[in-house]
């Protein structure tokens, strides 16, 4: 196991900057997820770590050793690809041992390693098959087996679950998490699926346009997003952004809310908004913070109950999503399925702003820090 340091890495093709100075450092055994929309540079960064692409500037260190100009095979890393990239002409066993063979590991040791990996991933019965004879999930396992066989210092996963169907994806996700707990390996994992990022990561790096927008634990990123982009990208359904005007009541800045009636929401950190009184900002409120009135929360400092008009309801089983319009923006609320709500109804909902965040409407910058 090794730590990984990415030190001000830049990459450009001609005039196009793909990576604009990436700084990430992770500890040995940590599970880092790079997440972002397509074209954000996450795969380029991954390829740079692997050595498959040269960086224009900056350094990459694995186990405190500068590998910026080391060839891929000498970096002691293994990679799992989205397409699995299994060698079609080789059996599963040969696929797993190819890397060892290239490193001139004797045949007996290779056989032992194949058995170990196959048992770990429960693919012992597939060892003689060719990749074409395997299902998607089985191929995925073999691809992981190939990576595990070499016991590298660092594992790279490039969207490994994207080609699986939804059910299998969830299963394999858990499996990868278990494997990481069991082996304590250092993993860098690229995905565009924010649920995968939340569930797997020790830390997440949210990327956009070749820059790291925020690096933090999943909970930090969920609760305390650095900017509008991160707030909107992480979480499903996405965070609500309510355009609202900052008004002063008794010298305290409040956020104006016009649903069925006009009211003002208190804010946990009002001092930070003093300079913005009179401006219209974006109030970020996750759906689960707008719920049916909950008696135990009644009377708490940052809780306001007000009437809204139901536009659409979406029962999801555990919760029912209620769509409404507030300040002319479409808003998602998460309520108990037992709470009566029909389209057209005016119902009371409880707004809990204790975890609300505020962004500048133009730049998307966080204002309440």
């Amino acid at each position, binding site marked *: 196991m090794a730590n990984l340091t990415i030190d001000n890495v830049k990459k450009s093709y001609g005039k196009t900057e793909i990576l604009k100075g990436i700084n990430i450092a992770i500890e040995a055994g940590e599970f880092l997820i790079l997440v972002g929309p397509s074209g954000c540079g996450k795969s380029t960064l991954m390829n740079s770590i692997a050595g498959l692409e040269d960086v224009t500037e900056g350094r990459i260190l694995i186990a405190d050793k500068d590998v910026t100009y080391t060839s891929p095979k000498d970096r002691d890393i293994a*990679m799992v690809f989205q*397409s699995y*990239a299994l*060698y079609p002409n080789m059996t599963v066993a040969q696929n797993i041992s*190819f890397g060892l063979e290239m490193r001139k590991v004797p045949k007996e040791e290779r056989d032992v390693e194949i058995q170990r990996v196959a048992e770990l991933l429960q693919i012992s019965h597939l060892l003689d098959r060719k*990749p*074409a004879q395997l299902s998607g999930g089985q191929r995925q396992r073999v691809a992981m087996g*190939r990576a595990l066989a070499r016991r590298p210092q660092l594992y790279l996963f490039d969207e490994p679950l994207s080609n699986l169907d939804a059910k299998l994806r969830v299963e394999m996700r858990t499996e990868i998490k278990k494997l990481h707990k069991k082996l304590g390996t250092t993993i860098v994992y690229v995905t565009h699926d924010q649920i995968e990022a939340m569930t797997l990561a020790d830390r997440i790096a949210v990327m956009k346009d070749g820059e790291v927008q925020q690096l933090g634990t999943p909970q930090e990123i969920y609760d305390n997003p650095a900017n509008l982009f991160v707030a909107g990208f992480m979480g499903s359904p996405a965070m609500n952004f309510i355009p609202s005007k900052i008004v002063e009541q008794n010298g305290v800045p409040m956020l104006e809310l016009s649903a069925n009636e006009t009211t003002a929401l208190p804010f946990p950190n009002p001092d930070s908004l003093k300079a913005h009184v009179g401006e219209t900002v974006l109030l970020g409120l996750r759906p689960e913070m707008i719920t049916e009135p909950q008696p135990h929360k009644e009377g708490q400092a940052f809780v306001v109950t007000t009437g809204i008009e139901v536009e659409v309801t979406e029962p999801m089983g555990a919760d029912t999503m209620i769509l409404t319009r507030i300040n002319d923006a479409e808003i998602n609320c998460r309520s108990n399925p037992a709470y009566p709500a029909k389209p057209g109804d005016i119902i009371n909902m409880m707004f809990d702003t204790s975890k609300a965040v505020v962004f500048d409407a133009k730049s998307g910058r966080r204002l309440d820090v």
Partner: protein
Amino acid sequence: MKNNVVGRKTSGVDKALRIALYATLILVAGFYLMPLVVMLITSMKDAEEVRNGTLLSLPSYIHFDSWEKAWSSACTGSSCHGISPYFMNSFKIVIPAVAISTILGAINGYVISLWRFRGSNLFFAALLLGCFIPFQVVLLPMARTLGWLGIASSTTGLVFVHVVYGVAFTTLFFRNFYQSIPGELIKAARLDGAGFFTIFYRIILPVSTPIIVVTVIWQFTQIWNDFLFGVAFSGFESQPVTVALNNLVNTSFGGKEYNVDMAAAVIAALPTLIVYVFAGKYFVRGLTAGAVKG
């Protein structure tokens, strides 16, 4: 819809159309095969029968005298050893030329598809142009080049020429085939520690069988049937069979021996025919072969 197709009764009109269709197909096939049939039956007649019979009349009894003569004693120009020495020449040219141009094409295609470099597309476009150059244009410069290399009028020289002008096509074949191989396969192999040639030999070549078959058939046919380069660049000793066939047909003492000419032509065409009969289905399959699913 489905029921209609399954339950449909064959009506009289359908039957008539079907008969017309088969009749047309048989007619066209017969028309296409006619020259071959004429060649075969003429080659089995003796000189007397050729002179007196009609073109399509069957030989009264089959004999292979003219085949023997064409093979070993017919005169091509001033020498009278049949076409057998030239038949061997053709093999001496075709085998190395096919092998070398196929190997080069495979490596070129591998690089252009899977190891892209700055300008690789331009390089490919330039190479593609080579497929469209009329060979008459290059005859004189190539003659100078062969002379300069000291391999003029030899089978080696002809191998060289065929390799040079075959590489454009073989590269095109392999490049298009390798386009369907995911680049991640190469990345995975590089991370596993394999180098350029190891990846080619261990991972790419084993999945290339269909396109190798296509390329070999194509090159074999092209080079075996070539006349232009053969007549332009061969010496007296290094003529390929196509040139010898031409000489044989043009050399006559007294009457024209059509039966010998036909026999020689069939012999000269035999190798490509055999290749097609045995590998033709791979040819079609290889041309339509799509993605290599991993």
